[in-house]
């Protein structure tokens, strides 16, 4: 499936901003089942200094600075990607037990496992603790195949938690999410990652987009989509496999990956330090257009 994604972020400032430094992670990264066909970043006002690089996790980063005084700052990332569906669905009861995977993760020194191991450690937004372990326990029964345990965990999160954009923000700690059983895709991804790490396993955070379908009979609204987030788990026999707890599904060909890291802090789409501006207003619009096969 081919998609065109347009992600527009607009800041309006109360007073002029004379100088800003920014970092953007909005360009879909290359990965096994995704091909980047074209991508461009439009920034107004025009930056006086612009560089791109690949970060520690292999994500594409654009660094720039704006020196022109401005009251409005707009970043529009437009990309076209081709998504190949993930490989065949498997029989979840087969595959390595989660204990065996954990064993391998901590003892096998092969490069992919060593690479995966860093995602088993605590990260700025996700500290595995006893509460998370307590919630995870029901899914990680002895001898269960890892993939089945994760699938179960994803289903439970979907069932137990209410999607509520009013309840949380970036600063809401996981314990609050767990206590009140409410949150958004970011929270659910972080929650799942915390649960998996509490079992000594590795999970990473994936940021991207999902194609949303309009209600039957209605036309899709432009800009109605949003950034999305889910998580990914390393399976020694299959590699990294994605799970979307918000939609209770294994991403197929409707998820577009932008970046991954230990948690949200590694993949923040837009960061900046500005001089001036006072208060600001933020508007984000995402549009995912299906261009057919």
């Amino acid at each position: 499936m081919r998609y065109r994604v347009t992600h527009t972020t607009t800041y309006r400032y109360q007073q002029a901003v004379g100088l800003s430094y920014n970092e953007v992670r909005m360009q879909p990264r290359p990965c096994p089942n995704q091909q980047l066909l074209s991508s461009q970043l439009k920034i107004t006002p025009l930056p006086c200094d612009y560089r791109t690089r690949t970060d520690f996790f292999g994500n594409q980063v654009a660094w720039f600075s704006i020196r022109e005084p401005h009251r409005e700052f707009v970043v529009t990332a437009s990309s076209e990607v081709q998504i190949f569906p993930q490989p065949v669905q498997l029989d979840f009861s087969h595959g390595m037990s989660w204990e065996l995977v954990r064993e391998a993760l901590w003892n096998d020194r092969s490069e992919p496992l060593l690479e995966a191991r860093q995602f088993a450690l605590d990260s700025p937004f996700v500290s595995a603790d006893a509460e998370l372990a307590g919630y995870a326990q029901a899914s990680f029964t002895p001898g269960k195949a890892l993939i089945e345990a994760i699938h179960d965990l994803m289903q439970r999160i979907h069932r137990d938690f209410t999607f509520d954009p009013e309840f949380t923000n970036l600063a809401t700690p996981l314990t609050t999410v767990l206590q009140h059983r409410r949150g958004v895709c970011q929270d659910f991804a972080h929650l799942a990652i915390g649960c998996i790490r509490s079992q000594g396993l590795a999970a990473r955070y994936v940021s991207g987009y999902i194609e949303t379908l309009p209600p039957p009979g209605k036309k899709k609204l432009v800009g109605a989509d949003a950034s999305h987030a889910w998580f990914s788990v390393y399976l020694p026999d299959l590699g990294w496999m994605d799970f979307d707890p918000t939609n209770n599904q294994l991403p197929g060909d409707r998820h577009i990956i932008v970046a991954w890291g230990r948690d949200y802090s590694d993949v923040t789409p837009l960061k900046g330090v500005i001089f001036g501006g006072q208060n600001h207003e933020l508007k984000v619009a995402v549009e995912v257009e299906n261009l057919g096969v």
Partner: protein
Amino acid sequence: MKTLSTPEAFAPGYRLDKGIHDEMLDETGRVRPHWAHLMQALQQLGPREVGQRHQEALKLLRENGVTYNVYGDPDGINRPWQLDPIPLLLSGDEWFDIEAGLLQRAELLNLILADLYGPRQLIKKNLLPLELIYNHGGFLRVCDQVRLPGQHQLVLCAADLARGPDKKMWVLGDRTQAPSGAGYALENRLAMSRVLPSLFRDTHVHRLARFFQSLRAGLNAIAPGDADTPRVVVLTPGPLNETFFEHAYLASYLGYPLVQGDDLTIRDGYVWLKSLVGLQRVDVILRRVDDNYCDPLELREDSRLGVPGLLEVVRRGNVAIANPLGSGVLENPGIMPFLPGIAKYFLGQTLKLNSIATWWCGQARELNYVLANLERLVIKPIYRKPGEHSVFGHQLSRVQLADWRARIKARPALYVGQEYESFSTVPAMVSGGYEPRQTLLRCFMVARADGYTLMPGGLSRSAPQYGNMMITNQTGGISKDTWVVATEPQHPAIPSKRSGGGLTGHGNALPSRAADNIFWVGRNAERAEGGVRLLRATIKKLFSNPDRDSLDYQLSLETLLRCVTSMTGTYPGFFAEDNEGLLQAPEAELLAIVVDESRAGSLANTVNRMTQSGYAVRDLWSSDTWRVIDEIEEQVSEARRLGKTGLWSMQEQMDQLITTLSAFSGLVMESMTRGNGWLFLDIGRRLERGLQLVSVLRTAFAMPQSEATETRLIESLLDTSDNLICYRQHYRSNLELASFLELLLMDPNNPRSLAYQIARLQEHVGKLPREPSTRRISAEERLLLEASCILNIANIEDLLSVSEAGIREALDQQLSKIYALLAALSDTLTANYFRHGDAPQSLS
């Protein structure tokens, strides 16, 4: 061979505990050969003389402003540096081994740093566990694959050493971010060599100055390729940092500008210093800011100490930072048990100097050992957050031990257990005698293009009490000089360039913030001096007037009291409504204006601001000037102490304060280079003097009073402005208002007149750096021209005329206009020269 005396002769009661190694005495209680000369000399001097020399050294350190800030202690800011007069002595032979061990260690740490931010072979080959590094807050993923030009990634490093009961030197920890202490070591050395010169010379002590030459060479070596004479700056978190004195000291000693984060800006891929004459490119940053705080864009976004965008400039290779961002990863004590394996891998060598036994709890066997032996180990987190200290197992209760076991078990990879050793003792001077104290030694290394160099000596610190092993400056450790005793006499190196008086400065590269601070030193010094003069005159009048019942006296005193309020800006004060009681019994309010530090405008508050601004540009003052600033502060503290006994006792203190404040202005006038720094200082001073004069004259004379009352007022004010004698010489007549105003407003030759201040300001402002293209007069010049015109066309008769409303309207109006112009001048200078732009904020 000389016969060595027993310790009884010079150190009666110097205890020696079994099982603890003493640096001075051997097991049989005899003085070790390399200590013999020092101890004999100290014996000859006698404890009283040594005590006196000690006091001299402390005085010297104090006068040089050597301080250390203790966090969380209200009296901890600028705590005087403590120095014990007995140095730690190390023989040349032993030093030879220590040196070999430390240089090898520096080389090794350098290779580890390059690997961790490069290929990470050590992790792939299992020589360092991934969890040990990736769990450490100092491993900065954004610094991945960033390299300094040249061979050395680790430019500076320090190691803490101590001798265990087995007589071997052990490394207790490494400092690899922004190691502090080298500057203190140098100050200790200067103080010691001043108070014990012959002893110091005869002991053939290795010199330190060469180390700082190496530091300079090392910093030049990492400069980006195209810089001919690289501009190096010292980046400090600011005056509240615990070792700010040292930042300023090193900047001044090495001749580099001392800057804070907002003095720098990123433009076109380079780092620039915001100086008075515009942006100047920076090639090398010697940083004393922790790496996490250096760039709010890519590192901690709540940091106000860094420079947004800095990391990207580093990445492009356009600026070099020593030490590089990310080097804090090496301060992980969990690395120590892996060093022998890494030494073998990288160098094919065994470690020459061992680390203290350390168990990283991220491994099952080590974890079990630590849990089982917790009560006799030291617990350390692998990543030390500011204010966190090591925990000593033997000091914990059973409940606390259980608590710590649970904490370690929950996150084993975050902790190490370390052997708790009884370090060796060194004699320390304690209440007139010598006592053994556990001592640590911090050694400093710097990379030059041709390899690492070790400072021959270092900073020794001993415990405040016997048996105490927790030796940090934050918890009261006392420093010592460290003498490496050579067999040959040592040649003196080039002396420190920091001598003479005045402000050294960096020519045009004076950072705008520094100019701002200097301006406020000038203003507050003058505000303090003017304030204390008026207060002294007022108190004198209050206490010493024989005819206190006369109405003239009473009215003139009341006016004077109002002048105190208006000049110090401590409203409502004596202007308060229903102030009858206050005017009848003004002592408490006057006392508050002198000593109440929390009140804006009070003397204590003003002096406080002055020293704070002065301290922020600590690197720019000569030691003489600093000594005077220090004395001013001391006298105000003394006045605050005396304050409890009432206003009367304050008078002598005020006389002294006036003398010291005058000494400060004299020193600045006589010995400061007439650069931009001096210009801003004197602008601040003249501006403040003008403002004070205008507000006092308005308060005193806008409302006409009886001639007798005004005569008394004139007398007090002439006394205040040091102009009484001048007036008598000029006019030889009775005190009368017309000639008084002539003298204080219009006389161009009276250095206390308003005309004089405005003329000097006009001269100064004309010399300020400006954009070359502008031909028109500057905003500052325009304001002063206007003030000068008002003053020039005013005539005394008009000023003295009383309107129908019963006030001297012309005087009141012209003075208030001039006041507004001078206030506008201050704002304009601030906007044009001191503004650093808005504070940055992070987008969310």
